[in-house]
């Protein structure tokens, strides 16, 4: 593609400018991907170098260190204790004791079972005395996977701590050699509210995220490589085991297997993804522009009861969606009050198929979503609009700009610049907008070709509700749901990556301060 200089670009007509921008955007994509791959490659290379450096450092610390340091390699914290840093030493020692205790008592077992995910399923025996059947439960694949992963986490944490322990010794030796004093326990504690304050503040939130977000996600990703489903639940019926890439092959295959319905999983995935993107686009931008207009209307000079209008609108935020959306869904049913009203007024002869016809249903959910979404946007826009300097408008008016021109030239660019990142996050969260779809249509109307043993698929189903249906379907195919989850992640990540590279306001984080 031909590249223009700034001057050449300015000479182009509007249409050409647009095409040029569009073209250069798409031309940038392969380059972006190339950069990404190169970046990953460089990252791996760097990581390799780092590991090498670390090992070299550890070895040299051992060779050049004194006996306290050498013993610390085995008994963590010994060096600290011997050099009078009691608090640090005890913490290191305690951590090592806990780690060893855990590994001996249970960690070793979970780790040893991880490759097979269990060997003996439940067994049933007949008890003659009571004329009844008794079940004995044995290995638990689910727990093995869960605690196996947790143990791996723990090992990584241990290696890291051990490395810190070694580093501490090296540093302590250096400090003592230069004749300075080591930090006392009291000083350590004080630094936790001062120059190390960020560690104190982050400790609790990060622990929570690690255990209740990272661990579950790692587990979920691993499930995609097993055959975990309703009939292989890992404990009560059959154990589950590793199956490699099978599930990905199933989901990404274009072959019509029947298991996926009368079309392949890949085709179904494509259809659902397309609708998900269409939905996210309309849900985001209808709300964005309509919300902005409503905010402008309410804020306009001469409009009274500003607070009252806003209050009415924000009711949809305050009232839980499972109440309001379920009711709205019923209102638009074939025999709901909307159709009843229209028919009694004689405006229509037959009930309108709000939820029965694929196109109607898709338009309906987008329209009703406006009802949910406008208030948020109105609140955000209200605040931002107030911050636009009034003299901008004044000078525009003196130049003879009408309201529309003012909007085009001042309001919109300002809003877009400031809310760019917000638009992106609301696009991705609309892609995963479970509540609106689940409560309004439940995915209906059904898409017969795509529905299968893995569960029904509807025309308004998003990837996230489809995933939910797979897990709650008759066969509870968790492994397939997990594959869909991973694919959703990839799609969202790709979109974000592309958008982030185009948006100006994210890169310059400091500009705002």
């Amino acid at each position: 593609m031909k590249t223009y200089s700034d001057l050449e670009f300015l000479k182009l007509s509007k249409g050409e400018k647009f095409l040029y921008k569009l073209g250069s955007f798409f031309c940038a994509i392969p380059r972006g991907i190339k950069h990404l791959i190169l970046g990953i490659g460089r990252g791996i290379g760097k990581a390799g170098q780092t590991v090498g450096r670390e090992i070299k450092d550890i070895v040299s610390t051992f060779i050049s260190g004194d006996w306290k340091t050498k013993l610390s390699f085995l008994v963590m914290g010994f060096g600290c204790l011997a050099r009078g840093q009691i608090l640090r030493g005890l913490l290191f020692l305690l951590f090592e004791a806990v780690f060893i205790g855990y590994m001996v008592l249970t960690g070793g077992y979970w780790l040893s079972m991880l490759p097979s995910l269990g060997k003996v399923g439940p067994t049933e025996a007949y008890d003659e005395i009571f004329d009844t059947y008794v079940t004995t439960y044995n290995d638990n694949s689910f727990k093995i996977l869960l605690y196996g992963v947790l143990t791996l986490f723990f090992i990584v944490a241990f290696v890291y701590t051990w490395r810190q322990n070694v580093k501490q010794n090296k540093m302590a030796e250096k400090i003592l050699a230069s004749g300075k004093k080591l930090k006392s326990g009291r000083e350590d504690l004080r630094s936790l509210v001062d120059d190390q304050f960020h560690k104190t503040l982050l400790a609790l939130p990060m622990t929570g995220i690690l255990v209740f977000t990272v661990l579950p996600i790692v587990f979920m990703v691993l499930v995609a490589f097993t055959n975990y489903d309703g009939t292989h639940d890992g404990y009560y019926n059959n154990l589950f085991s590793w199956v490699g890439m099978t599930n990905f092959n199933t989901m990404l295959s274009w072959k019509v297997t029947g298991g996926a319905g009368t079309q392949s999983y890949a085709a179904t995935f494509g259809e659902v993804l397309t609708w998900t993107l269409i939905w996210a686009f309309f849900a985001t931008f209808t709300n964005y522009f309509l919300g902005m207009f409503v905010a402008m209307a309410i804020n306009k000079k001469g409009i009274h009861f500003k607070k009252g209008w806003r209050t009415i609108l924000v009711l949809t935020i305050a009232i839980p969606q499972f109440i309001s959306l379920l009711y709205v869904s019923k209102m638009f049913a074939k025999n709901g009050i909307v159709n009843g009203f229209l028919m009694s007024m004689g405006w229509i002869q037959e009930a309108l198929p709000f939820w029965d016809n694929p196109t109607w249903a898709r338009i309906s959910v987008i329209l009703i979503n406006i009802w949910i979404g406008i208030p948020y946007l109105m609140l955000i826009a209200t605040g931002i609009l107030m911050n636009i300097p009034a003299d901008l408008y004044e000078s525009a008016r003196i130049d003879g700009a009408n309201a529309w021109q003012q909007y085009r030239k001042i309001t919109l660019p300002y809003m877009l610049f400031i809310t760019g990142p917000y638009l992106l996050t609301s696009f991705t969260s609309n892609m995963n907008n479970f509540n609106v779809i689940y409560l309004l249509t439940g995915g209906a109307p059904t898409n017969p070709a795509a529905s299968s043993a893995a569960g029904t698929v509807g025309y308004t189903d998003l990837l996230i509700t489809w995933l939910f249906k797979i897990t709650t379907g008759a066969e509870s195919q968790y492994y397939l749901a997990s594959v869909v989850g991973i694919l959703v992640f990839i799609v969202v990540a790709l979109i974000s990556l592309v958008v982030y590279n185009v948006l100006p306001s994210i890169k310059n984080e400091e500009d705002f301060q």
Partner: protein
Amino acid sequence: MSEKSMLGQSHDAPMKRHMGLRASRLAANTAIYVVLIVISIIWLIPFICILLQSFRVESTWQVGYVIPQKWGLDNYYNLFKTDFPKWYVNTFITALITAALQTVIVLCMSYTLSRFRFKMRKALMRFMLILGMFPGMLTMIILYRVLKDLGMTQANSVPGLILVYVASSGMGYYVSKGFFDTIPKSLDEAARVDGATRFQVLKKIILPLSKPIVIYTVLTAFMGPWGDFVFARYIAFGSSAGMNVAVGLFNWLNKDQINSYYTMFCAGGVLVAVPVTVLFLCLQKYYVEGVTGGAVKG
């Protein structure tokens, strides 16, 4: 919120254009009023309908009309014969404790990421951004098992729910970080020069300026548990004592219960909506300041 004009007005416009401007402004304002009234009606209809249904006593199932034939408080009265009060208390406790703890967590996280510059900061933020792109739906299976091992499921779901809500709340730091970013850094630098520790800076300087974002965080955290009918249902399955209002009411819409409970569902819905709405309306001002201060940064 200040009610000053958003679009600005020129007071020194030429006199001869004055009359025409006024007429056109009048027309524009009338049009806006009409639009606002229509919007308000559309916005209010569902809530009014739910309210009316909750006062209908001639029948308990869904009907094709809106205005009750017989009015009464029976539905509200009957709610207290079910487990509804228990669910309500469960949710209230969950919401209260979650609001308190979640605020602490979110503020710690966002303040740190906004104010400190440390080695892993960028990496950490990128890591959490990526983490947030995974759909969380499936993880509830694992969270259930973890909570079960801690004895926090079914009848004991309340602590379990609080734990999960609070523990994963650190991920939602964006809005409040955006808010902190707008507070000039020179303020804390000046205090640091005067010998204040980081902790003192937070306590003495930042927190007093952060009222809107604190209230915004408390409010969103408090509102969350009232509407959770997916995860809470999974954790409390099969045990009425551990359910929250959303799950309990949602179960009433089962095929075999809806005909006896539909109007009570509406009444329950009204009771859930009232405290949340009142709170929201009272604190709306801070919510707006918080969200505009923060959301603009995504």
